[in-house]
């Protein structure tokens, strides 16, 4: 008990020291008697940062009556699950204070709102796995093989990163249309697979790995595929994890392309479904709770992924940003 308290005290002391020494070059830090308050602005900003999330959570558990209150209640007077699922809801009867929960909407779609989760989950995982597989194969060849036209190919790949992706939006749409892929998973997945940035990033990473490792294996008679799976992939692991997280989050939150290629509700991904939900109940305060519930459910998976992989994440950004 005592040891624990001591430990805590030590850590607090250490924090204090770090704060002083770490801010060594911070010109904004005020000295003297106001230094106690120098961190007040940052805490105020933190409130602004958290507020939208807080509002998503709390208002998704408020009743319609409570949502209409002016000024709004900061903490729900009564926490109710109605915005997600109201057990008293009857589609044939309108009653006051009984809601049509999120999972009771989209009745024409199989599995209702759950369908969009399935769509998003399937699309995101498929794209992430395939794009990393083909990207890492290409990166390995570009970084460690010698053959004609390699430089030219790599140059085109890097060069494409300078072109905003919206440039290819319309021909991409026409191509998908010609192939008959509109409103299918194909349209989601196939065009999203070749990602130049992944190849660029992995080539950078691989070029810091000595060629000797691979050549030694080659002398030992290893085949190229064996080298890729047994040597290159394990070496690439940190970079691959970073890219995996980026790709997964990017695809989960993707909006403009899915908006264009979906024509019926059942093929929408979560962001498109959110937009549908918003447009269906525009302006009606009663649907705000349902919209917040949906927004929360859409945001949670990426936030959880971020919490789980935080270290890789930050390192990945640092790696890709500062080169």
């Amino acid at each position, binding site marked *: 008990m005592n040891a624990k308290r001591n430990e805590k005290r030590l850590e607090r002391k250490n924090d204090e020291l770090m704060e002083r020494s770490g801010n060594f070059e911070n*010109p904004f830090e005020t000295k003297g008697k106001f230094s106690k308050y120098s961190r007040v602005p940052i805490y105020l900003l933190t409130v602004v940062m958290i507020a939208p999330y807080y509002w998503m959570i709390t208002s998704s558990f408020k009743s319609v009556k409570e949502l209409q209150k002016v000024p709004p209640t900061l903490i729900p007077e009564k926490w109710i699950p109605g915005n997600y699922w109201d057990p008293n809801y009857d589609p044939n009867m309108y009653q006051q204070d009984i809601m049509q929960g999120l999972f009771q909407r989209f009745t024409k779609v199989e599995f209702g709102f759950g369908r969009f989760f399935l769509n998003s989950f399937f699309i995101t995982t498929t794209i992430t796995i395939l794009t990393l597989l083909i990207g890492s194969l*290409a990166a390995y060849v570009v970084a460690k093989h010698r053959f004609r036209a390699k430089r030219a190919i790599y140059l085109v790949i890097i060069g494409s990163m300078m072109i*905003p992706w919206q440039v290819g939006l*319309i021909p991409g749409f026409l*191509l998908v249309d010609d192939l008959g892929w509109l409103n299918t998973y194909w349209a989601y997945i196939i065009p999203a697979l070749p990602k130049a940035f992944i190849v660029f990033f992995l080539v950078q990473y691989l070029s810091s790995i000595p060629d000797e490792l691979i*050549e030694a294996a080659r002398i030992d008679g290893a085949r190229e595929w064996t080298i890729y799976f047994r040597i290159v992939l394990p070496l690439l692991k940190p970079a691959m994890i970073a890219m995996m997280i980026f790709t997964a989050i990017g695809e989960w939150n993707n909006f403009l392309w899915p908006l264009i290629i979906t024509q019926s509700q059942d093929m929408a991904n979560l962001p498109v479904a959110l937009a549908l939900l918003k447009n269906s109940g525009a302006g009606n305060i009663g649907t705000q709770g349902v919209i917040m519930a949906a927004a929360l459910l859409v945001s949670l998976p*990426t936030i959880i992924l971020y919490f789980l992989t935080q270290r890789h994440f930050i390192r990945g950004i640092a790696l890709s940003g500062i080169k």
Partner: protein
Amino acid sequence: MATKQVDTKNSYTPTKKKGFYKFSDSGISSYVMLAPFVLLFIVWAVYPVLSSLRLSFMRYNAICDETLSPCGSVGFGNYTYLILQDSRFHKALLNTSLYVFGAVILGLLASLSLSLALQADTRANRVLRVIFFLPSVTSGIAVVLVWGWVFRGDDIGLLNSLLSSFGIAPVEWLATPSLAIPILIFMSIWGGAGFGMVLFLAGLNAIPAMYYEAAVIDGANRRDRFRYITLPLLKPVMVYVVITGTIGAFQIFEGVYLLFPTSVGSIGGLKDMALMIVPYLYDMGFNRFRLGYASAVAWILFAIIFTISLINIRVTKSLEDLR
């Protein structure tokens, strides 16, 4: 770039191969490994870009009909009309420029200040960094929906109910032309400052502590240390943040799409007060199906982004030479 110049003399060369194989020292597997990425890349990245260039010189509407709506080359017609006559496009350009200017400059200041404030490695700072970074992984649509409630024009809007507790009359936030761009800039900073902060933190941590120690010995004060050590050494990160921030800001879509619809089903809000380049492209391409015209918009977007990136790099370089 980072591809290594291969040293032919010293590295291992497999036995001479004949015919096709002589192009690569790893045999056919080089091509097999590269093929999935390169083929998909040609179809879904190279072809759409080239095709959109061709479309941008054409009148190409969804339905091509000899008499009613003929498709065909118009030379530079789309471009000259966009640049010289299309007042909606001019409005979109003006709005986007104001938005990008505000979002990039203020975003840079915000993320730099944040990184300095949260630089010390204390427990509190670690938590705060996570909080400030959260918007970067949250679905843009989900966030926009919360802001939509915050900025509602009636007294149920959160900002308005906050104002009314101070006795201020409700403001039509999303229907006041002079407020549209500032609101979008605010949303961009809220959503992007944490990402910039992570980049700056990586940059700050890469500065050796001994520079500061030496400066202290030489009698440099806090301001001098920031001015002569921190700022110059952070410049590469700053250039990166500005360039990627500019590119990202030019592509704004979701906030405009959801918060500023118009009654006739197009985008831009009242009097096109929030119309931007990509929403205009979407409106032309997918509401009006003027695909050739929309492609020309996309290429103007590319030209702007490309020029600004070049200028950015040039300016930083010439500033470096001045030193």
